[in-house]
């Protein structure tokens, strides 16, 4: 049952991605991308990350894509215009993307045990079995509540990156205002 749901959403995500890059209208592209985001949110829930799924909907669908749609409308780019590259460009793009896909798709057969075996061959990891107690995240999430289990590392181990990220957001905020305003 779950795998059926997984594959349905996976197909929806791929379809959304394909349509996103093929649609001429930016508005249509944005809407197809939105469907991909929703599918991914569903997949996150399936993978045991309900919190991430919720944030996916809130941040990406609710904020980022709406921002995209605003800009598209602001610039009045709603009309259809052909912005595909020429034949040679398309061929090059397909070749490069194809090679990349082939290389990346090698992860298709990955299972936790295979991952553990491969990592164990690496120099750093000493005890693969101890390093990979299966279902880590969910076990941690079950032990505490979900938010606490995420907040713990975020505000302890990754406190400084977290603070830096907030500075980054502030910089982006100021930068966006400065760039977008006609006259300050």
């Amino acid at each position: 049952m779950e795998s059926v749901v997984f594959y349905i959403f996976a197909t929806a995500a791929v379809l959304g991605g394909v349509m996103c890059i093929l649609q001429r209208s930016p508005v249509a592209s944005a809407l197809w991308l939105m469907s991909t985001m929703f599918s991914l949110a569903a997949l996150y829930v399936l993978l045991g990350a309900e919190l991430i799924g919720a944030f996916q909907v809130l941040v990406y669908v609710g904020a980022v894509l709406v921002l995209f749609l605003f800009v598209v409308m602001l610039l009045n780019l709603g009309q259809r215009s052909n912005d595909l590259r020429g034949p040679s460009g398309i061929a090059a793009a397909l070749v490069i993307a194809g090679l990349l896909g082939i290389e990346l798709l090698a992860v298709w057969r990955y299972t936790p045990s295979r991952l553990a075996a491969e990592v164990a061959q690496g120099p750093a990891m000493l005890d693969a079995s101890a390093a990979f107690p299966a279902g880590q995240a969910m076990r941690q999430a079950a032990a505490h509540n979900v938010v606490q289990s995420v907040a713990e590392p975020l505000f302890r181990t990754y406190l400084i990156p977290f603070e830096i990220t907030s500075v980054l957001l502030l910089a982006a905020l100021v930068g966006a205002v400065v760039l977008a305003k006609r006259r300050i």
Partner: protein
Amino acid sequence: MTLFQETAAAAPAPGAIGLAWLLLALPMAGFVINGALSIWRPRAKGAVSVVGPAVLIASFAVAVAIVLQLWQASPEAPYILRLWTWLPVDTLRIEFALQIDQLAAVMMLVITGVGSLIHIFSVGYMRTDDGYARYFAYLNLFVAFMLVLVLGSSMPVMFIGWEGVGLCSYLLIGFWFNDKANADAGKKAFIVNRIGDVGFLVAMFATWQVAGTLDFAGVTAWASAHPELAGSGVITAITLFMFLGCTGKSAQIPLYVWLPDAMAGPTPVSALIHAATMVTAGVYLVVRTSVLFSMAPLTSTVVAGIGALTALFAATIGLRQYDIKKVLAYSTVSQLGYMFLGVGTGAYAAGVFHLVTHAFFKALLFLGAGSVIHAMHHAYHATHSHDDAQDMRNMGGLRRAMPWTFALMGIATLAIAGFPGLSGFFSKDEILAGAFARGGEQPIYYLFYGMGLLAALLTAFYMARLMTMTFLGPNRTGEAERAHLHEAPWIMIGPLVVLGILSLVGGAINLPPLVGGGAGLEHWLEPVTAPAARFFRLEEPHGSTELFLVGAAVAIGLLGLAWGYLASSRRAIVPAREAAPETGFWRAVYHKYYVDELYDAVIVRPLLWISRVLLWGVVDKGLVDGAAVNGSARLSRGLGWIGSRLQTGQVGVYVVLFLVGALWVLRVVVG
């Protein structure tokens, strides 16, 4: 600063020996003061006249105190004064240390003693020169380096002094650098010395490689602990390279050519550096490492052979020189040959003995010649004549004008010619006797003995010729100039008198048993030569053989003197500007057998050709400039052109390139 943390000898360095660093510090301070004066107060000749000789005399006093202390202690092992650690590199640990032993004592007495006399002489001789302060600065610096050379406890420290005296020699030869010939002579001395220094360096590297130490004490201990290496190839190679260094510094065949040219410097410099001290550094080095040389019989034979050959060869050139300093220069080369004959024979004490007596009488000869040149120069200066003040053909009859100089140079002449009872007689006789004695084992030493004896004859001849042409007979200086010839001031004659006394009685330090002496110097040096004596001990002749040898030497010396006087006084000599050029064989001798021309044709010109055509034309212009410099410029310009083509400003192109790179990295990493 603790001046000596420890000493190699069990006993701590007593009293004055601990002050040995003063020996170096005093002349160095003199150099600094005089150097500062020469830059900021070039006219302050009074201060220079005090500081220059004073530091030397103080240094001499320290040396005397040290030697007295050493006399009382008479230690078997040298005192080592570690001043500071100079090069601590892994297992190589070179201390800047001074080594005080009997050999160093002899050398420092000679250097500071004769050096003091020459400094005092210089006050009179150089007084009118514009570079007076600079001259004394260099001279003080030279003495400091020379003391480093003889006091250094290891080869690298000695090498500092070795190079330092070479530098001072260069500076003083080219002291009057306004004349290109003088500057060229300085360069020649410097470059020829560098060739020898390479030999010394190679010897040093090889010693480090096999012995693992560069301290003289350590090397001696190592050699004594490895008697099985005696006669081995490695010891022979080390000593041969070392001797190459000696031939450069001590002007032996084939590197002697710089010393006659070095006479371009002021005459007291010739006396101090190019007769009494620096040029004997090679002899000192051989004696210092005598244990190695006695372990290499082949090298010893080479040393003795080169020494004998140089003694004879240089003496023949001296026969036909007219420049008074050139005669003395070739005489120095010849006498240095004697010293090498001595140390090559294994008579190390005899070599040092001759070094000391030679320092006395040759310094006296040079200073006497300086006095003569001083007078001649003033005479010509007074009449604005441009004749050569150093040419003996322009002299003659000077004994009337300069009786003191004549008498003192006469003593030196008798000493160098081996007149019985004078210093040179004993030392030269001992060397010749040693060579003769070793002939019993290796017959080739009979040949060396014969060459030495012949050289003694020639020495007596050219010295008698020099004296005759300079002081006897009619005066040829010129009518107007004759009245201006006068004796040098007392400050110049004083040192001459002291040196004259030393030349007379200097032999007393090592009187042979034959005349009732105790061979003092030989016993004094025994702690130094004992390790060498374990490998080779020269059996000195006794009885009738010794009497015969002495008789032969005396006869030869007297014969040479008489022959030289007769040959020179009978010939009518004309002043230099009227003299006809030499002909026949004497022409070749006058031109020093064209050795300089030969070196020029065989070594210098091919080297220049290789440098100009091959190195400059092909390697430098073609490879370095063409391929490397311009080539890399073209390469970067080409690469830059490609890069600029890539910079289209189109984000798409960048993305494609970026992705291609990412793909490639992925390929490599994921593999």
